[in-house]
């Protein structure tokens, strides 16, 4: 029964969460790795996670935390390793989306996270703040800076500052 419900949850949510993780990490293989680990953790405590209102949010938050840990680990490495490391695995994208992918890659991880959670996942600012465990004001400022940076690169119309 537990396995069946987890299988249904996994099948229904994998593609969606992978797209969100890819938008944050910019690397499809990395996103897959993080997501698989997050699902494995969810399955290890499925009885508990299943009882949550939104198990998908739990998996996403674990994967985002793992992404943050991975990014910190990378930052600690020498600059040379950055340069010598493998380029990210990027699927085939249209030129317009490739521009967006590149532009997202120029943002700090914190800004990418709030942009994805707010604009892609559709969470309100307060919920983004809860998920990332940062003040709502921090989310708003990151959103504003992130959107400004993207708009400069992409020439998007600038949306209004989101209200919690």
């Amino acid at each position: 029964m537990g396995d069946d419900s987890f299988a249904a949850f996994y099948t229904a949510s994998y593609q969606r969460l992978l797209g969100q993780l890819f938008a944050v990490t910019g690397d499809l293989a990395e996103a897959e790795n993080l997501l698989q680990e997050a699902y494995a953790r969810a399955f290890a405590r499925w009885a508990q996670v299943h009882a949550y209102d939104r198990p998908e949010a739990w998996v996403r938050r674990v994967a985002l935390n793992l992404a943050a840990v991975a990014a910190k680990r990378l930052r600690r490495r020498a600059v040379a390793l950055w340069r010598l490391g493998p380029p990210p695995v990027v699927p085939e994208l249209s030129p317009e989306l490739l521009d967006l992918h590149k532009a997202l890659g120029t943002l700090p991880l914190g800004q990418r996270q709030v942009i994805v959670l707010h604009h892609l996942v559709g969470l309100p600012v307060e919920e983004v703040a809860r998920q990332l465990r940062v003040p709502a004001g921090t989310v708003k400022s990151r959103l504003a800076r992130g959107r400004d940076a993207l708009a400069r690169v992409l020439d998007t119309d600038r949306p209004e500052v989101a209200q919690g």
Partner: protein
Amino acid sequence: MNDLDARLQRLAAEATKDVTAPDLEVIMQRGRRRHAVSGPVLAGAVALVLVLAAVVALAAVRGRTDRPPVAPAPTTAPTSTIVSADRWKTYTDAAHNLRFRYPPDWVIRRRHQEGMVTLAPSEQARRMLAYPPTFAVTVGAGGGYYIGEAPEPGMTRGRLPGGQPYLRWESEVDPSARPGMTASTTPNAAGRARVVGYSIDWGRDCKGVKPYRCGPHGVNVTIHANDTALWNRYIAAAEGIVHSARPVTPTRPSSGNRSLPPCRPDQWRVVWPGEHGFAGAQRFFLSGGVQSLGGPRCHLRARLELRIQRDGQRLPLPGNPSARTVEGDLPEDGMTKDGGSWVMRGGPLFWSFSWDEWCNKGLEGPTLQLSAPNGQRLRIGGPDPATNASPSPAFGGCQDRGQPSRLAPWP
């Protein structure tokens, strides 16, 4: 929904449209392993890890000067990493016209070299881009023609299920050696790394590594296992990856366009670039190509015969004379001179012969004669066992080991 929302939605959807979720059983197994080390067991594991770390640190300090570090062999029984191939994930590189499948619990990384990726089982991913990796499969697309000039010992031929011809070889290397160092020829032992190489005929197209070249392309695969235990554990999956490889879009045969008019005898000539090669001390290696002499585009299929003789008489050794057929289009597959050196632009008109145990007694003073169906006879001075040297480059070390000498087309 504003414009940014819509663009992000499209990015997420388009990036994942070809991705299939990994096998659920793999995720569940990972979760069960994680669950198994929770609670009191976790506390015990932490204590054990601390003790092991202290032991390893002490051993590292004591053994630092003794020997180069070698990745430890797995101590647990092999676990099956091979799942039903219909659940494997698909990797697609349309720019280099390459698609293959791989197990869902393997990870894949692009390399700096264009068209190259490395794959490894997830538990070996930490060292997959290091040298030597513990176990890794590296696939490089878009190279030149699959038959190159460097012969490998023990090379075999075959075809992928998709029909692509390939060359395959195995070798053993010192795990502490860096790339480019001489491979060991000692018998395999548990501690020796094993390497498998594939060179696959990918057919003709105009894709591949920049600068793009319309012509025959190859795909190279290297499988590296740092010890026999890793080899036994993963080699079947690695071979499965190789045999799942396909072009994304069909390619034309490397042997060229048979609907072109046949080349006239005065449109081409066989070329020997003036160099010999050796594969180990005992194997002499002769190779060359075909030069276009002008005229309209044409298709060439020619049987070339190499004969080893002395004083006009054929030397009595197995495989002599030996023949191979080359097939390609002119002028694009012909050899040209660039900066004073011959350059093989295509590949399928490349020809090569190997002569094993060339310095046995009784084979002194040979001449090699290459005959072509256009009436051309190319006479080449052979390597001379009497002086244990060849015309170019000087070479020593060949011995009469009492084994039969043999001439054969290569590969």
